[in-house]
């Protein structure tokens, strides 16, 4: 049986149009390539 309160906690407010900048800035843009580059550069040092 679904518990309403538990399920309700899974819902989050959706970002509004004015929040686009925050959403963009909130992105974690570190990818695997960055990790490799950093690892390689650290190894070289």
């Amino acid at each position: 049986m679904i518990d309403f309160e538990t399920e309700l906690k899974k819902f989050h407010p959706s970002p509004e149009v004015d929040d686009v900048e925050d959403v963009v800035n909130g992105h974690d843009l570190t990818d695997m390539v960055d990790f490799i580059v950093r690892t390689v550069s650290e190894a070289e040092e």
Partner: protein
Amino acid sequence: MLFCYSCGMALSEKSYCTSCGADVSKYKKILYMSNRYYNRGLEKAQIRDLTGAVEDLRQSLKLYKRNTQARNLLGLVYFEMGETVNAMAEWVLSAHYQKDKNIASDYIDTLRTNAVLLDNINSSIKKYNQGLNQCKQGNVDVAKITLRRVVNNNPRLINAHLLLALVLMKEEDYSGAKKELIQVRRIDRGNITAALYLRMAEENLNTDSKKHKGKEKEAAVTIQNGNDIIIQPNNRKENTFLSLFLNILIGLVIGLLVGWFVLGPIRVNMQKSDENKELSDAYEEINLKNTTIDTLTQRIDSLTTQYEALKDQLNTYEGTNGAFEGYKYLLLAVKEYSKGETADKNLVAQYLDKVDENGSDKIKEEEFLEVYNILKTSIGESVADSYYENGYNAFRQEDYVTALENFKKAIEYNSENVDALYYLACTYMANKDYDNAKYYFNMVINISPDSELGNKASNYIAEIDAQ
């Protein structure tokens, strides 16, 4: 085409950069994996497994954030799921990483230029957030109304559908929840939350259905009678006198109605058949009589024609005024004339006049006509004198009408009676009928030009001409 992460030069098939010598083997593997995730995401998006597509595309971007195609597709999938702001964020980042020849810029421009669409999307997002807050505050009824508006306004907002379905299930409106979840599945087949909620809703609907059937079954009572099982409905009522009476009454009414609707038309048809036969007989009789009437009419026409023909034939013998009457007066005139010297010539003349009145011209037989002419000539002179005397007396008394009649008669019996001609002309003069007067004066001159009356006639003609 791949580029070196260290120097930015194009890479070859080698595992190191031919330009700077950096090891690019792992780098290449990562990029291949990123592309593989992108391909999987694309395949899932194509079969509308949007949740699965989002996972793969995000994985692709975690491996290689500059994968423009993956980021653009992720934006499109977010947009399709109603998460427009997330979509815009992906496209902004995509445009940031690849400024040229990037369709993400077109997507952003389309949304920016369409203010109505953007406003509508933003409004629905705000209302969704409002509905979510209402739910968290326990105002489920109000939240339900708000969320209904949201899904009507922006049917692609999956989260709104899911939240509304959750609210409806809380109120045990499982069929309503099922409708919302089906709509979610139409947009996103891979939505796990929707699948979970849908299963729960269907289970509850099945339970309700079973309960309903169970109640129906309880409505019957099973009785074990030896080896026989008797199932008796619980709601069965005992027949009372009133119900028996009502049943009989209903039966009678039904019987009457059946009689009326089934037997009625048969009876009507039979009546119609009899009436049709009578009508047919009547028509035959009428036709027979019409034929008789036609025959009789033809006979009447024939007889009328015969009658007219005979009448015409008779007229040729009788004349319109009856020639037999003329014959009678002719015989009377002969009878009177046959008396010899004692015969009254005026009476003979009167009879001959009667013959004229009845149409002397109608006497067809020559013998009779000859007798008529002989009589008229024989008595002519003396009768003419007699008429002349009567005319002259009337002329003296200025009774010109009588004078005119008598003078004409006198001339009729004796056309060379100069005196009668002269005074007839004078009578016309007195009546101022100068043409006739001149005509008869000329006759006088022709018959007796040197006589006294002839001279007088010449003088009168001169007077008439002088006028």
